[in-house]
């Protein structure tokens, strides 16, 4: 599941040694943290420095994958608001942190409140767009994203939000165009930002089957921000798609040495399974399950993967449905709709499954797994026309994803 975070860049003290390349300097967020702390040493009551510190800390969370930075960011915001209650930048920074923590409902509510105060702030519209998309209201997300673009044509946050929405709608080339524009405007020192965009573009190329292009982009991303965990994860996925499963295992194991996420744990289990390390894969899945279950009710969960796990090798269809329903109660984005539909299907509730998967497909997603699920569900409801259509779409994107269904079809024809 992708996480889009608008990068907020701060003003702090001047960047000393700015002529050096990004690889010679500390990472951008780290520099800003240090600069903000320097200001606070001299001016401990400067609330704006606390705001900048908070944003830098949240940004550092994305740089490193270490989510404890969000807690530090919350503390910094608390200090800011104590010094200057209701200061706009502090409250806006809080929304940014909430988005990073995937607390979308709360982020949306606070963003709305800020928007009522100052309706022409591009970033607040961006937070609303992100939160609405994450919660599944793509119409409102689009409206907010359009406001971003209208307020300040060509701004990078708008391009990033727009790219994400275009991807959700299945407009891959449109998404790549926006990412490319954002990349063009990213200054050389913003190395993590550039790497993030390049990795996102690589993902789109991978999903479209353009593996060489994806590889080239990931090489660039690695050059921009060496050791970036998001790039490593995407590289691992690419290697799996290229059937270089051992390479994938190696990549993700290395990535997981530092702040492994639920997604990266699941990815490791998948990679091990594909590489034929059955016992190790089993252990990895169990590890994932334990961690994922501990966070079922938290905002930063990985319930989608957990549901897919339980409907597959986990063999706990009823538990899958319980978890999926709970997540569906919180959000209706395409990934949640897909997981819910699949859990319903696994529990033979085909009509309801069909209703939910149709909503997911209606958004326009270009994702092979979702389309493959749609094909299976449509077939289960007797709609062979839709089933074949979805299957064809899935195969065109990624033939491997639809293999089990294709095999089933052949078998049925044989009978």
């Amino acid at each position, binding site marked *: 599941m992708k996480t889009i975070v608008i*990068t*907020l*860049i*701060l*003003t*702090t*003290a*001047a*960047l*000393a040694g*700015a*002529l050096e390349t990004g690889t010679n300097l500390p990472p*951008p967020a780290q520099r800003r943290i240090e600069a903000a702390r320097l200001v606070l040493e001299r001016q401990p009551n400067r609330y*704006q420095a606390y*705001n*900048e510190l908070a*944003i830098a800390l949240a940004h550092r969370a994305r740089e490193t994958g270490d989510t404890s930075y969000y807690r530090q960011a919350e503390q910094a915001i608390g200090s800011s608001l104590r010094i200057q209650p209701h200061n*706009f*930048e502090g409250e*806006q*920074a809080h929304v*940014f942190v909430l988005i990073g923590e995937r607390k979308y409902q709360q982020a949306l509510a606070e963003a709305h409140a800020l928007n009522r105060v100052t309706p*022409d*702030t*591009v*970033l607040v519209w961006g937070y609303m767009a992100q939160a609405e998309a994450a919660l599944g209201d793509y119409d409102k997300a689009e409206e907010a994203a359009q406001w971003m673009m209208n307020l*300040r*044509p*060509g*701004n*990078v*946050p*708008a*391009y990033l939000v727009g790219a994400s929405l275009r991807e959700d709608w299945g407009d891959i080339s449109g998404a790549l165009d926006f990412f490319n*524009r*954002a990349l*063009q*405007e*990213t*200054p050389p*020192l*913003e190395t993590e*930002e550039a790497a993030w965009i390049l990795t996102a573009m690589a993902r789109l190329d991978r999903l479209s089957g353009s593996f060489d292009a994806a590889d080239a982009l990931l090489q660039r991303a690695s050059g921009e921000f060496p050791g970036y965990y998001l790039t490593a994860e995407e590289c691992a996925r690419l290697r799996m798609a290229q059937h270089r499963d051992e390479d994938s295992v190696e990549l993700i194991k290395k990535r997981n040495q530092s702040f492994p996420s639920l997604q990266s744990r699941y990815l490791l289990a998948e990679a091990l399974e594909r590489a034929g390390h059955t016992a190790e894969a089993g252990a990895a899945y169990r590890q994932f399950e334990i961690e994922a279950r501990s966070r079922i009710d938290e905002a930063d969960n990985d319930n989608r993967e957990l549901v897919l796990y339980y409907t597959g090798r986990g063999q706990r269809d009823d538990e899958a449905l319980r978890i999926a329903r709970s997540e569906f109660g919180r959000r209706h984005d395409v990934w949640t709709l897909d997981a819910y539909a699949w859990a319903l299907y696994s529990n033979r509730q085909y009509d309801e499954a069909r209703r939910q998967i149709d909503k997911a497909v209606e958004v326009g997603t270009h994702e092979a797994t979702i389309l493959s699920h749609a094909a299976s569900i449509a077939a289960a409801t007797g709609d062979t026309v839709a089933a074949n259509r979805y299957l064809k779409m899935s195969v065109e994107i990624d033939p491997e994803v639809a293999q089990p269904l294709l095999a089933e079809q052949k078998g049925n024809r044989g009978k």
Partner: protein
Amino acid sequence: MFSKLTSIRALAVAVAIPTSVGLCASQDATTRTIQSLQSHLKVFPGDFKAYDALGAAYIQRGRETADASYYELAKEALTKSLDLVSSDPAAASAKTHMAVVSMSEHEFEDALGWAQDALALGSGDPSPWAIAGDALTDMGEYEQAAEAYEKLSNPFGPRGGRSSGLAYEHDSRVAYLRFVQGDSENAIRLMHQALATAEALHMPAENVAWSDYQLGEICFKSGDLGCAERAYQAGLSIDPNSYRNFAGLGELRAAQERYLEAVALYQKAIAVVPYPMFAAALYDLDVKLGYVEDARKQYDLIEFMGKLNPVNQRLFYRELALFYADHDLKLEESVGLAKSELRVRRDIYSWDILAWVLHKNGRELEACEAMKHALALGTKDPVLEFHAGMIEERLGHVERARALLERALASNPHFHVLYADQARRTLAQISTGEPRTAFCRPWARPPKTGGMLQR
């Protein structure tokens, strides 16, 4: 004078940006703008855009008066703007203005940092690349500056290509880079292009006049006095108070040996903005014409302006160093000033000034090393060639000295009110004088005898 171009140019961006608040070259208009914004902010203290506009107005005031204390006021206003909004793309304007203030104060690394911060907000406005490029130019990073200026060509801009305003920013700056790289022809072509754009866009008079001045300078240094005349006159016709064009035309008149007119023009320039370099040029003219008392006044003005406040001191290191060296005054202090300048501004002209003051202090080998940096790009500037020629002469490299001095005079026989005559005298001496004995790598060959160097 030309070496000051970059930091002055940076300010042109600040003037161009807040056209919505009606800034123009008139000091009265700027004062009214400041007062209006101050009144507005009393009623709407949360208006970050107004603080930004106020900062821009103070910057403009600083340009109009040459009083660096306005930059401090600009910083205060811009800081307040950024306290209110700093992470939204809308804050890019205030951060760009902070970069301009830093440029004005010759804090080039800070300027670069602010410009990069502005860009990092991703506002979609590539104009901070202009300031980034200016800062890099002043730091002597010409290649990086060129890369920054190329970013002003935004293929995804609202007009689907290079917007005209950005084309102006690009062309006027790249023209300077071309000049320092020895390509005067393309520099002139680009400046003409920039001027055409500026006029087509009806840019503020001061911006257009500044571009005329820049064109005039390039033409003058290239020896095309007709082009220089047309450019300076055009600048004055569009902005009758353009002190830069007064000074440029004054320099031209001095080159044409029309000294009384030159004096009057420099006096007009000083009446608008009393920059030390104008006073220094006027000093030389007064001395040439025998106006001793007037020369003394200019000297006092130079000393006063150069030491008005700490910011002014930093702004005029180069001009003071040059003046002292040219007139064999406070020579040790001139070395300190030149080194201070080089610490903050590592462009070819800072190296040139250092080379010149070292030469005047009799430190020829060090002067030679510094001059290498000044000439590294192949700039065709008769002043650089003159300085280099004089250093070579002192080192005994007569042929090289001859070549440099002749080149300086060939481009413009009156390229400088003092230097041109000195160049001629030195050339005459070279023909009859004895070579000196010293080394200056890598031009020197190891001596085979007791130190007599010949090429």
